[in-house]
């Protein structure tokens, strides 16, 4: 629950820097903030602090004006080449417009100038995401591992990303161990649930079965755990029992899917259930429904994997 001690806290440093930028105590709205920063930048001319550009870029990102954000971040970096957060944010902006190469270059610079463990780990984790999106799975995994080693309070997302990368590379035992250590470090139920799935996928059925039984019994909405149990049952050759679970799960999921405005996470669950039942056309319909509702490839990855489809990389 308590963060471990780290070397000179970057955040405090950044906070001091940013707090030093004179702005409204409680800004009224985003446009007002941009106006305020612009006035300060214009008034200070060449002497404008890089933080002003960084802060204005942050507001532009809020408004999804990424071109302007990119220009401001570049300006901030030109003034302060060691501004780690600016390099990192620029990498994210470049990644967003699909320029993996430039995004990776920007993250490379962030990593080079990082001065604290937390800065370094955060930049490595972002670079791992970009590498993963580019299909450079091994490199992504290396960065992710290094991030988690560098900073012990790594975010739950980093553990999930590592697990995903290990799965793609067929490193199932490493994945299992990584999720277990991630859970013991963070106590996150998301990592615990992923670990249970990894148990099934690595054949540790005896270990997974009692956990799943307990969870099926305790849950108000049981479909997620019914899907896991069905996966275990299918793996152990109990096809009929698996089918019963899948049908029960689909029945429950149907009550949670409002076709015109669905929760895509539930639609993906149902698609996985159909896929496990062998109903590929129903599963594909759910894949289409999820995509139509705005699901990106990360959100549909489980279903695409269940259908044996290749991920469509950007």
């Amino acid at each position, binding site marked *: 629950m308590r963060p471990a001690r780290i070397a000179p806290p970057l955040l405090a440093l950044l906070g001091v820097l940013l707090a030093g930028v004179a702005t409204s105590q409680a800004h009224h709205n985003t446009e007002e903030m941009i106006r305020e920063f612009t006035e300060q930048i214009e008034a200070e001319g060449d002497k404008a602090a890089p933080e002003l550009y960084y802060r204005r870029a942050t507001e532009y990102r809020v408004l*999804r004006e990424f071109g302007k954000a990119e220009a401001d971040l570049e300006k901030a970096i030109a003034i302060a080449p060691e501004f780690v957060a600016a390099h990192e944010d620029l990498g994210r902006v470049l990644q967003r417009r699909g320029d993996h190469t430039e995004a990776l270059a920007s993250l490379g610079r962030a990593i080079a100038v990082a001065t604290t463990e937390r800065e370094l780990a955060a930049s490595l984790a972002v670079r791992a995401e970009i590498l993963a999106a580019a299909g450079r799975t091994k490199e992504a995994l290396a960065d992710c591992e290094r991030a988690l080693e560098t900073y012990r309070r790594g975010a739950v997302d980093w553990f999930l990303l590592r697990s995903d990368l290990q799965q793609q590379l067929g490193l199932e035992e490493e994945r299992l161990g990584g999720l277990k250590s991630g859970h013991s470090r963070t106590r996150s139920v998301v990592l615990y649930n992923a670990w249970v799935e990894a148990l099934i996928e690595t054949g540790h059925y005896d270990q997974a079965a009692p956990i799943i039984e307990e969870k099926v019994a305790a849950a108000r*909405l049981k479909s997620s755990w019914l899907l896991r149990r069905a996966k275990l049952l299918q793996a152990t050759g109990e096809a009929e029992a698996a089918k019963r679970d899948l049908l029960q799960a689909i029945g429950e999921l149907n009550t949670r899917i409002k076709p015109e405005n669905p929760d895509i996470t539930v639609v993906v669950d149902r698609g996985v259930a159909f896929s496990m039942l062998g109903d590929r056309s129903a599963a594909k319909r759910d894949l289409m429904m999820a995509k139509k509702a705005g699901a990106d490839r990360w959100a549909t990855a489980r279903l695409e994997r269940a259908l044996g489809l290749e991920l469509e990389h950007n």
Partner: protein
Amino acid sequence: MAMVPAEEWRKLAPCPRVPQPLKSPMNNNSSLPHLATTAVLCILAVAHARGEEPEAAASIGGVIEAEAPDLASAVFSRAPYLQLATPNSIFISWRTSREIDASVRFGTELDGLDQSRVEIEIRQTITDDAAGESPLHSAPAGTFQYEAKLTGLEPDTQYFYAIYDGRTRLTPADGSYHLQTHPEIGSDRDVYFWAVGDSGTGGRAQANVHEAMLEYNRKAGRDLDLYLHVGDMAYGSGTDDEFSGRFFAMYEPTLRNVPCWAAMGNHEGKTSSGKSGVGPFYDCYICPTEAESGGLPSGNESYYSFDYGKVHFIALNSHDLDRSPAGAMAQWLKADLEQTQADWVVCYFHHPPYTKGTHDSDREGQLIEMREHIMPILESGGCDLTLTGHSHIYERSMLVDGAYATPTVAEGVIIDDGDGDPGGDGAYKKTSGLNANNGSVNIVTGHGGTGVGRKGTSPIMRKIIVENGSTLVHIQGDTLYGTMLNYQGEVRDTFAIVKSDDIPVRRAALEEPWQPAGKDPDSKKPKLADGQRMPKRYTALLPPNATWSYLAGTKPEDGWTNPGFDASSWTTGEAGFGYGDGDDKTLLDDMRNKYKVVYIRREFDIPEGTNARDLGLAISYDDAFIAYLNGKEILRVGVDFGSGKSAKGFSPHEANRQFEFFPLAGKQELIRAGTNVLAIEGHNANLDSSDFTLHPTVLVTKPPKK
């Protein structure tokens, strides 16, 4: 629209808990001067338990009782506040600027603090490699933060407590330091909580909002069970110093008795990181990461859940974590909702999915993502209520489901377009328990202390109030009761949700729901406020462009609405009256930035035999008006209360060169044979508004042609 009979409602509203005395409600002098954050001694975290019984100590004459509350403020650099309550434990945290021999004693009787099962962790500011495992990352040099965990407590029980330095009692024995444990999870216990957002200015408005809540509860004989803060509690950058002055000092009388469960705002996010859990926000708060008080373990202090009786509370980080459906927070949220056995779900976070206050949820990334990615998970999991901030306004939705599109539209998402007021259109109705897509009410309560404002109108909102205030929620059994209390202690909005087995889970959205009127820059078609479309056939008793007596820029004498009032000193002019939009006959070109209200009156005849049922006022107006017939108020549109210069609570409205029709059915007793007097006061919502229009007519409708 559902209705709850008034008698039934009166049974539902009261809070059954016996209130306890609360003393010195606004003693805010506990904040000491703050020191610069520089090098600090590193300290090992220490956990120890005190075994001395206060009575035993007292019997040997060793306990020094605090003579006055001032002792507390002299010792504490941050006064005691409660954290992470569970049915059997709670944390009391405080800070001093010197090391003390800390202990806590507590008991169920004020004069019997006979328990001391406490583990105290001491945290100090980080400086070097020897700073221990859990340092403070941002506190001033020399700070000692004590986090005392009281254990072995009985559920739903009030305890008095005292903090000691050795044998010296630091907190006064005046009964004002008490706490209440949570009830057992799943037990039939009501919960009464306060939700505040965007408050941390340290200014008068923030204090007024707090004092209004204290006074309201004092009069009602209620105690808060919980305090939810939806973020932006320490402007401008959430520094440790700002937390001390603008949060802890400001709310000290509440925080000593009620745990605050916080969600991180963007201003705290300038110095605190949700990913790493490092920064002043995380130094201040002890949030559950391991489901200590119910829910599922999140592994991150910036998003978590807890239970209170049959209510499940969820706090999310809308600021600096991945908000996508595949992200860890969304995965946790889904699992948490699937697990809970509660009857109610309340979720709170900073960035609102629906707002047109000082922020625009159709334009800003975090807001759009919370709506498009997180709201579907919440609603498919059965969420009943969301509370958010960021936008400095109070906006409260109708009962909605599935409003995920960008831009937000009302069509196809409004389940009940009533006002939700048990004394008005009636409470919103939902199915018992938690059910997917059964409707949610969404509140933006970002008006806790900073300047308020409004950009436009979100089409799903039922109440939009641009003034400082806060939200109080009482959940009892099958009913959730919400109140917006403004900074003056006035109830400005009331709504309820009642759950019943009689309501089907799936209900179709209304085809043509009511929609709020107002200034919406994105709006293509003008919307009508409370008026109806013009009747097809009518006779004008008072035609358009009639000549009226009017008074602009000055206050009328008393009785100006009455028949017989001498208005000969008033100016006369043709309707409409106004400026700025090219639709006015009598131009008030001195109005902008000088005055907001215009008074008009005129006599007119109502033919004998006219039925009030057929009578109506047709009016083009911007922004609001109050109409009087023969001295009695008959219509109030866009003005919540008061009249003349003291009118308050305006809802902006554009005339759009349209007339709206307001039937006067039910006003028969006010109609006189022969001459009648219609008087109207027209209001601009803002002094610097770009336009104003007041153009009334009186009509008698005719039946449609056969």
